[in-house]
């Protein structure tokens, strides 16, 4: 039998110690739902993101694409003679600069929403009430725990300051 165990807190400072305690007992905390980002919780869950590296990649792609386009259209496809000045000029820098930002912004946004599966019409995961208001909700999902261990987890949550602990049985 698998179980979802939910601990509800009203103080964000109590959550990180609870996570550490649970992890030391060998219980994996799936996620914590909070009304605002809490650095200590991110740290306690040992979460890491490769997002900045991806953004750098997007920027690089944007740079190469824009440069290729400028060079092809303005130097190769139809070189205009503007006062005898060279077609391939340093002033490409400005369009390059702006377009790198443009492309990186758009791709980062798309990457974020695709990775998080968020968008118009996406259903929010309902863990407990008040997550977007004033509750900090610790979730242990699909835990395979025996009776004794479940009681222990509940006790840890309550001892750490949770105002409520909910246990739900889920079908495997």
């Amino acid at each position, binding site marked *: 039998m698998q179980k979802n165990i939910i601990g509800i807190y009203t103080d*964000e*400072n109590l959550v990180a110690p609870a996570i550490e305690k649970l992890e030391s007992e060998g219980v994996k905390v799936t*996620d*914590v*739902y*909070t*009304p*605002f*980002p*809490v650095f200590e*919780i*991110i740290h306690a*869950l040992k*979460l890491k*993101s490769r*997002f*900045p590296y991806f*953004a750098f990649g997007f920027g690089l792609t944007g740079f190469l694409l824009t440069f290729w*386009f*400028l060079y092809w*259209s*303005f130097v190769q*496809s*139809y070189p*205009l003679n*503007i006062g005898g*000045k060279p077609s391939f*000029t340093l*002033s*490409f820098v*400005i*369009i390059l*600069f*702006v*377009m790198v*930002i*443009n492309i*990186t*912004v*758009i791709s*980062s*946004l798309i990457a*974020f929403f695709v*990775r*998080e*599966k*968020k968008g*118009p*019409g*996406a*259903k*929010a*995961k309902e*863990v407990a*009430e*008040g*997550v*977007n*208001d*004033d509750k900090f909700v610790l979730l242990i999902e699909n835990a395979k725990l025996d009776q004794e261990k479940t009681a222990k987890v509940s006790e840890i949550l309550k001892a750490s300051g949770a105002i409520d602990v909910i246990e739900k049985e889920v079908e495997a």
Partner: protein
Amino acid sequence: MYDAKVRGILIEGNKNYHQISDEVSTPVESKPPKWWYVAMGIATIMLLAGVWAGYVTISQGIGTWGLNNSVAWGWGIINFVWWIGIGHAGTAFSIFLLILRQKWRTSINRAAEAMTVFAVLAAGLFPMIHMGRIWFAFYIMPYPNTRGPLWVNFNSPLFWDVVAISTYLMASATFWYVGMIPDFATIRDRAKKTGNKIREAIYGALAFGWDGSTKTWLRFEHLAMILGGLTAPLVISVHSIVAMDFATSVMPGWHTTIFPPYFVIGAIFSGFAMVLTLMIIIRKFYHFEEYVTRGHLDAIGRILTFISLIMGTAYLTEIFIAWYSGSEYEFFTFFKNRITGDYYWAFYAMFISNAVVPQLFWFKKVRQNITVVFIMSIIINIGMWFERYVIVVTSLSKDYLPSAWADYSPTIVEIMLYIGTLGLFIMGVLAFFKYIPMFAASEIKGILKPTTIKEEQKN
């Protein structure tokens, strides 16, 4: 570490998280006050006047404006630059303070970003209408076409402008929207609780299925920093490029290297003044005194003092260089057509409003008097309009060839176009008051505890 004892409490009234959700969501969930309808009515009339003027301009042509061969740019470009300038502060404010990790931004960023989006929209209308044949507007897009293919001139500041401003609009609008998602989720959840199905559906769609997961928050924070970090240089580049529209032409008074930084500073100056105007209105009419504290207004006042000093320095530098360069045309423009001459009134309106009046912010008494601060923010906005007027009209009306000198005054069509964009801006801001949470509630919750004095510290 933020020391609330030294730097003041950011959110007054000893609030808890639920109270913040409550108070920020209330204007969205309740009927707007009476004055809101009155203001919306006036804004609609203003917008209709602008629509009429736009119709006249497009159906009859630019000949309905007061332009002539010498003064070929008039109110159109003045208002364009003015709006772009105002549109600068929102993002400048929000992003520079985000990167510098200034916690007091949280009370102001949402409104500042909203203002940016509407101001840039208003600005964007001017080049479109100014084209005369607006149905050919798509010619500016670089796409493979049957006219050569004839590509746009990638070395022209006017084309840079198109790229920079549309990128800026896109980046600031998305930055604004992404920041709103968690607050939309709050409203969605509250609507569900009270059983308001329509509101739940609308804000549910807007909230993109936000659930407050820490994994999402981590990427969200990264996304905010990436967007912020990228848009910050864009703030500088957009107005530098607008300045190059002028600086790369060989007009006396325009052809100077000081123009890009001078324009950027001017833009941030006018935008901050507009943020100040807006925050005082929100504070007063929606009773958000505990969110926008005197401390916040004081901080903006201090920044304005500093920027005003830079403005004054820029004005004096321009005048000094006009003399020191030995160029008789430059000398004429600055000394015979700005400081003295036909347009002296515009020059002094600019100089006094931007470089002299804001110096009153040195006095704490002035910074603490909200009425005076409000009036000063309006004066700065007017002064910045005159700055663009001085730049555009004085240089063009009397250039190298005295036989080509001409006067310029706007026609009713140009004036109505300007009023129309003001109407558009006011409408946008009013809609923002009603339909969008005016404060970034999730961010305010995040800074609440570190910026309040704890019980044990009080003694």
